[in-house]
């Protein structure tokens, strides 16, 4: 199990690093897909079966396809992709800030002691999560559906040439 964790973790980090460093957004998108699918593997290792399926179905299958669709639709050429030159100072400074913040977060997370527990038999199953979603989380669930509706309307309005 440990080997699997380190494999998935390494792939996720690699995908993330490639995504932020590659110039071509399409290559970046595919690196991000690698990262997302590795994260899906980690979700499966954490017995979150429903979230695992959703991660592949929604993230890798729908959101990323949407992003790739946009990248292909814009079909940017070399000039449009060329980013304005940024100073080395800025790169180093940003990287340093992020690294320090990550280090701080890791220090904080290191103090957390996990609780050893045996999950219930339906832990992470579609039925279990679904029941929870429609009982304890009913109002957030409805709010999310409203947000999605607003997003749909907003996107249609944005994309229309003439309203």
């Amino acid at each position: 199990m440990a080997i699997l964790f380190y494999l998935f973790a390494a792939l996720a980090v690699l995908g993330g690093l490639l995504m932020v460093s590659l110039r071509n957004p399409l290559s970046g998108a595919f690196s991000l897909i690698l990262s997302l699918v590795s994260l899906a593997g980690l979700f499966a290792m954490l017995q979150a079966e429903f979230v695992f399926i959703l991660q592949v179905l929604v993230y890798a299958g729908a959101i990323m396809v949407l992003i790739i669709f946009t990248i292909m639709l814009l079909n940017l050429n070399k000039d449009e992709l060329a980013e304005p030159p940024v100073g080395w100072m800025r790169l180093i400074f940003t990287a340093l800030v992020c690294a320090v913040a990550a280090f701080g977060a890791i220090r904080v997370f290191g103090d957390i002691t996990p609780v050893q527990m045996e999950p219930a038999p339906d832990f992470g199953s579609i039925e279990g999560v679904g029941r929870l979603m429609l009982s304890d989380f009913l109002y957030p669930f409805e709010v999310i559906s409203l947000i999605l509706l607003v997003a749909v309307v907003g996107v249609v309005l944005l994309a229309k040439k003439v309203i």
Partner: protein
Amino acid sequence: MTPNWVDFAIIGGKAIFIWGFALSLLPVLIWFERKGAAFIQDRAGPNRAAVFGIRLAGLIHNIADVVKLLMKEMMIPPQVNRTYFMIAPVLGFTFILTAFAVIPWADRFLVAGRDISMQVADLNAGILFILAVTSLNVYGIVLAGWSSNNKFALMGGLRSTAQMISYEIPLGLALVGIFMVFQTVQLNEIVRGQGDLLWGFLPRWGIVVQPLGAILFIVAAFAETNRNPFDLPEGESEIVAGYHVEYSGMRFALFYMGEYAAIVLSAAMITTLFFGGWQIPWFPTESIVANAHAWLKVMLAGGALGALAFAVLMFAWSKRIHGAFGDRRENEGAILFALHAVIGVVLAYLFVESLGMSSIPEWGARTVALVAQISAFAVKTIFWCWVFIWVRGSLPRFRYDQLMRLGWKNMIPLSFVNILLTGIVLVLMGG
């Protein structure tokens, strides 16, 4: 938790079986596509390629195709993005084959104290796994379209992305009705639920309890496989050949195999969800096992009769083609006649032998049930594969705006209506 080697062997055997099933249907589908389209368009279809004069009504053409595609140069045009160009065909094929892992093809097989479920992986997520994996399938097409660096290929890629995202929604929503009726997402449980009878005589198949859902699912499945009437990504009259215009040789063949594998997968899913899967209507597994000797006799008699009837047909045909060609093709009828006559006689002999049998051992009975159910599953799946070819021969292609209007404005609202109706009926029935 140390899995032993027998378990590994069983899982390996199951994987080999389902992939073998899927892959061996590919040449049959290509044959359907040619001979079936020829039949629909009232022409002869391919009938030249022959091995020692044997043509098998055009099936031998597939061998010629494979040889041609293997020998062809795999062109890599200079303007393409090489890495993505080479990965794309593989992606398109891999995900489809992965999805076969959860398709059940028979009831659980009880032998030697083991309870073997007849699907490679009995996941709790079941059908959602297929949806998730097939949603990744679009990347093969997108990558091919983009990496070809060709505007027609890009158009094909764009069209396929939009189409696949749009039709995944009605596909998933059509399934919700099935989940509500059968109260599970596990495919084997769904199939088991379809074994009951409705009002005492009608098999409780998905198509009976979810007619609207079945229609929506089938239409969406056609769109997901990029088949006619939804084959805009490769509309050859508008964008040459769409996303695979720059491909040749085996890479091109991989796209085609991917498309046919997707057809087999869709046919298997339609069968499993809406047409009873491996269920033989009115005969649940236990009744087959209890009456296995009768089933064995009927199967042997049917096989013998079928083979002998085919042999007679072949005999008549060999008389007709005698002297028609002047080469070895004339022998084909006689060879097929001899082959089927031998098979028919052997089956008839086995049938006569089995007449004296009044009961067979438990494992034999289970095997009879297994064979009967696998045959039922195969027959239904092949029928649905044929429907895919049939539709291609009958319907014209959609225009792009019509495709989007159908998907978003008709099918998605209809699938919501389906969910609502299913819920109302379930509540009224007290379920």
